[in-house]
C-alpha cells in the first residue's frame, strides 16, 4: 500500500509540475495576477507530494519491504538502521528521487522567500523550475520508478553496496545534489531575466544569495566526497580526476565564476549578459554531471548500472533545456547591453580576469572528460586521459588566479591606483616570500619547487585577502568596534579566500613530500618510510554487524617513541559476497599516517599499502573554510535589509504597471 501511495504522489507531482510551468507563463502573457500567483501554491503543493513520496520510500526501506524491487536490490534485514535510511539514495532510482526532492525543496524556498521580489519575476522563476521538474518526473516515472513491485517477493534483499556503508555516503551525495540542483535557481533567474528583458542591480542582489547557497553545498559536497574517497576507497589519494569527480568540479568552477561576476553585476551593473550566460552554463554542467553519472557511459567507481534508455533520455533533456536557454540567450541577450566603462586595473577588471581563468580551467577539464566519450561514441577508438593531463593544465592556470585573489581584496571598484596598491601589498608579498622559503625547509629539510610555489601562493592569498578586514578594523577606535563594523559578506569573502590559500598549502605539500609504499610484511616485520617505522604485528579475525573481517595491527614509531597503533581491516560482506578494504588513519594537521590491508598470503604475511601524507588535512580544512565563508556571505545583512526596500519598490512598480 505505502509504495502505491508514493507512486501516486509522484504522478500527482508531475501534474502539478506541468501546471506550475504553464499557468505562470500564461499569466505573464495575459498580465493576469491570479495565474502568476498560482505559481507559488503549485510549487508548494509539488514539494509536499514529492516529500510524501520520499517518505514512502524511506518507510519501505525501514520496513525492508522486499516486494519493492528497488528496496530488494539495496537493502538487507541485517542492514543497520542508519544505512537503511541512507540506502534510499544508494542507487539510481532513489538518488533521482532525492534529486527531485531537492529541486522541489529549492522551488518551495523560492516561493516562500521571494515574496519581496516582483510577482512577475518570481512566477517566471518558478515556471522555469517547473519545466525542469516536469522533465525529471517524466524521466523517473517512465524509466526509473523507485516504487516498482517485484514478484515473487524475495525472502532476502541483495543489500546495499558495502562501499556505500559509511557515514560519508550518508551525507556526501545529498550535499552534492543540493549544490547541483541549487544552481537551477540561478538558471531560472537568468532565463526569467531573458524573458522579461529586465536585468539590473536588484536582480543581481536577488540572485546572489541563491547562487551562493548552492555553491556552499557544492563546495561541501565535493570536500566530503574527496574525504570519503580518501577514507573509504582505500586509494589513499584525495582527488583522482575521475570523470565523475570532474562532473562535480566543472559546475563548481563555473559557479565560482558566476558568484564573482554576479558581484560585478550588482555593484557596477556590468557584465550582465556574461553573468546570464554563466548561470545557464553552470546549471547545464550540473545536468551534464547527472548525465555522466546516470548514463553508465563512464568507467568509474560512481557509475551505477547502465541502461542506454536512461542515458539517452537525460541527454535529450539536457539538450532541450540547455539548447532552448541558449537560443533564448542569443535572441534576447543584446537587450542586456551594458553601459559603462571597465578598467582592467579595478576590482571589476580583476574579477573579469578571474572569470577567464576559471572558465578556461573548466573548459580544459571538460575537454579531458568528454573527449574520450566522444571518440568512443564515434567509434574512433577507446582512449583515456590520465590525471597528469589535468594536473598539467589545471595547476598552472591556478597560479595567476591565486595572485589575483590577493589583489582583489585591495584594488577598489572603478579604478585602482598602482602606488596605493603597492603600499598595501608590499608587506603581504614580503611575508609570503619569507614563508615560502622558511616553512618547506623547516618542516621537510628541502625546498621542492612545487612546495615553494604552493607555500608562496597560499601565504600570499591568506595574508593579502585579510587586508580588507584588517584595514576596516584599524579604521575604528577599538578592536571590538572594528570587528563589529566588518560586514558579514566581507568576513565571508576573506574566510573563503583564506580557505583557498590553506587548500593550496595542503595540495603543494602533499604532492611534494608525500610517501606512498606498497610492501609485503611477515608478522613482526617492520619497514621504514620517511622518519617513521611501521611494524606489522599480525592479522586476526574480527566481526561486525553484517560482515566478518581480518584485522591487521600495525604499530608506528618515530625515533624511539611510539606514535600510534592502527587497525586496518579487510571486510567480507556475506550478503553480496563482497570484499571491502577499511583503511586506518592516524591524523594530525601536519601529517596523516595511512595503512590499508592488501591481501593475505599463505605464510601469514600480508601486502600493505602505507602512506605518509603531510598536511593533507589542510585540503579539506580549506574546503570547509570556503563553506563557512559562503555561509557568512549568503547571510549578509544587506540581503535582509534590502528586502524592505525591494518590497516597497516592487509595490510601487506594480501600481504603476497596473
Amino acid at each position, binding site marked *: 500500500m505505502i509504495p502505491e501511495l508514493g507512486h501516486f504522489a509522484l504522478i500527482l507531482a508531475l501534474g502539478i509540475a506541468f501546471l506550475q510551468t504553464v499557468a505562470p507563463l500564461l499569466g505573464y502573457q495575459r498580465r493576469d495576477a491570479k495565474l502568476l500567483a498560482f505559481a507559488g501554491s503549485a510549487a508548494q503543493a509539488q514539494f509536499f507530494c514529492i516529500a510524501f513520496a520520499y517518505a514512502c520510500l524511506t518507510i519501505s526501506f525501514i520496513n525492508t519491504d522486499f516486494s519493492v524491487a528497488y528496496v530488494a536490490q539495496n537493502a538487507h534485514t541485517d542492514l543497520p538502521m542508519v544505512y537503511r535510511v541512507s540506502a534510499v539514495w544508494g542507487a539510481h532510482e532513489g538518488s533521482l528521487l532525492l534529486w527531485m526532492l531537492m529541486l522541489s525543496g529549492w522551488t518551495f524556498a523560492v516561493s516562500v522567500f521571494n515574496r519581496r521580489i516582483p510577482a512577475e519575476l518570481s512566477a517566471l522563476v518558478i515556471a522555469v523550475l517547473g519545466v525542469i521538474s516536469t522533465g525529471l518526473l517524466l524521466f523517473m516515472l517512465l524509466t526509473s520508478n523507485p516504487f516498482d513491485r517485484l514478484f515473487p517477493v524475495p525472502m532476502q534483499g541483495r543489500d546495499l*553496496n558495502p562501499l556505500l556503508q559509511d557515514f560519508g555516503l550518508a551525507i556526501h551525495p545529498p550535499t552534492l545534489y543540493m549544490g547541483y540542483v541549487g544552481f537551477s535557481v540561478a538558471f531560472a533567474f537568468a532565463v526569467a531575466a531573458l524573458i522579461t528583458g529586465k536585468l539590473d542591480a536588484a536582480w543581481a542582489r536577488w540572485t546572489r544569495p541563491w547562487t551562493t547557497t548552492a555553491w556552499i553545498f557544492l563546495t561541501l559536497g565535493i570536500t566530503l566526497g574527496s574525504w570519503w574517497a580518501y577514507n573509504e576507497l582505500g586509494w589513499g589519494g584525495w582527488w583522482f580526476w575521475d570523470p565523475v569527480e570532474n562532473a562535480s568540479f566543472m559546475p563548481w568552477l563555473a559557479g565560482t565564476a558566476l558568484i564573482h561576476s554576479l558581484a560585478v553585476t550588482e555593484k557596477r551593473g556590468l557584465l550582465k549578459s556574461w553573468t546570464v550566460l554563466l548561470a545557464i552554463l553552470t546549471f547545464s554542467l550540473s545536468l551534464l554531471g547527472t548525465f555522466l553519472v546516470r548514463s553508465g557511459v563512464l568507467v568509474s567507481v560512481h557509475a551505477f548500472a547502465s541502461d542506454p534508455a536512461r542515458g539517452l533520455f537525460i541527454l535529450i533533456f539536457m539538450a532541450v533545456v540547455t539548447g532552448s536557454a541558449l537560443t533564448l540567450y542569443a535572441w534576447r541577450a543584446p537587450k542586456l547591453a551594458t553601459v559603462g566603462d571597465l578598467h582592467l586595473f579595478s576590482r571589476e577588471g580583476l574579477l573579469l580576469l578571474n572569470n577567464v581563468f576559471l572558465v578556461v580551467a573548466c573548459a580544459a577539464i571538460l575537454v579531458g572528460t568528454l573527449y574520450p566519450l566522444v571518440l568512443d561514441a564515434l567509434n574512433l*577508438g577507446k582512449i583515456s586521459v590520465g590525471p597528469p*593531463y589535468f594536473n598539467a593544465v589545471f595547476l598552472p592556470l591556478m597560479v595567476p588566479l591565486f595572485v589575483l585573489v590577493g589583489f582583489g581584496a585591495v584594488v577598489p571598484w572603478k579604478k585602482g591606483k598602482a602606488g596605493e596598491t603597492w603600499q598595501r601589498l608590499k608587506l603581504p608579498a614580503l611575508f609570503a616570500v619569507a614563508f615560502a622559503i622558511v616553512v618547506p625547509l623547516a618542516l621537510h629539510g628541502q625546498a621542492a619547487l612545487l612546495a615553494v610555489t604552493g607555500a608562496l601562493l597560499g601565504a600570499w592569498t591568506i595574508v593579502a585577502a585579510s587586508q580588507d578586514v584588517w584595514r576596516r578594523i584599524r579604521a575604528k577606535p577599538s578592536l571590538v568596534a572594528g570587528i563589529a563594523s566588518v560586514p558579514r559578506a566581507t568576513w565571508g569573502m576573506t574566510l573563503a579566500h583564506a580557505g583557498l590559500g590553506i587548500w593550496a598549502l595542503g595540495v603543494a605539500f602533499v604532492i611534494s613530500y608525500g610517501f606512498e609504499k606498497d610492501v*609485503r610484511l611477515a608478522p613482526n616485520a617492520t619497514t621504514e618510510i620517511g622518519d617513521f617505522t611501521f611494524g606489522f604485528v599480525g592479522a586476526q579475525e574480527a566481526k561486525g554487524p553484517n560482515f566478518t573481517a581480518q584485522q591487521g595491527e600495525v604499530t608506528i614509531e618515530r625515533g624511539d617513541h611510539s606514535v600510534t597503533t592502527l587497525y586496518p581491516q579487510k571486510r567480507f560482506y556475506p550478503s553480496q559476497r*563482497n*570484499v571491502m578494504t577499511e583503511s586506518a588513519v592516524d591524523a594530525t594537521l601536519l601529517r596523516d599516517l595511512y595503512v590499508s590491508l592488501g591481501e593475505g598470503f599463505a605464510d601469514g604475511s600480508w*601486502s600493505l599499502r602505507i602512506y605518509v601524507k603531510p598536511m593533507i588535512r589542510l585540503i579539506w580544512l580549506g574546503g570547509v573554510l570556503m563553506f563557512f565563508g559562503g555561509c557568512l556571505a549568503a547571510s549578509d545583512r544587506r540581503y535582509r535589509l534590502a528586502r524592505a526596500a525591494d518590497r516597497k519598490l516592487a509595490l510601487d512598480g506594480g501600481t504603476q504597471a497596473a
Partner: protein
Amino acid sequence: MTKRNQRLLGVAALLIGVGVAATLGFTAFRKNMMYFYTPSDLAAGTVPVGAAAQLGGLVEAGSLTRGDGLKVEFRVADCAKNIPVRYEGVLPDLFREGQGVVADGYMNDEHVFVATRILAKHDENYMPPQVADALKGNPDTGKHSCMPFKAVDKTVAAS
C-alpha cells in the same frame, strides 16, 4: 593611452593568455592520452614499445605467479590471444583469475606488458565496458567464443 588602446591591450592580453593555456592543454593532452588495447591488438605488435597504453581483458585462469615481495605476473587474455603482464604492488580487492581487469602501463622490449596500475571494480558482476565490448567480438562471423574464460567460482572470501 586612450581608452580604445587600453581595451585593445586588454583583449590582446586575454587572447595571449587563452592561447598559452590552449597550447599547454593540447601538449599535455597529447602526452597523456592512453589508447585502450585488447591482448589481440598488442599481440599484433603495432603498438610501439614504451608507449603509454591501457590493456583490458580477462585474467587467464591459473596464470598468476608471485615473485619476491609484491611482484606478480599473470596473463591477460581475450578470446584469441594473451599477453604476459608484470606488476609490483597491491592488487585490488576484486582482482581474480578469470575476471576482467584493466591495466595501465606499457609494452617493454621483451614483449611483456609492464603495468603501473591495475583496475578492477568493486562489484563482482562488473566487467569494464571496454572489455565487455572487446569480448563481444564480431557478430557477423560469430567467432570469439569466450567459454574458457568464464568466471571461476568465487570462494575467496576474506581469507
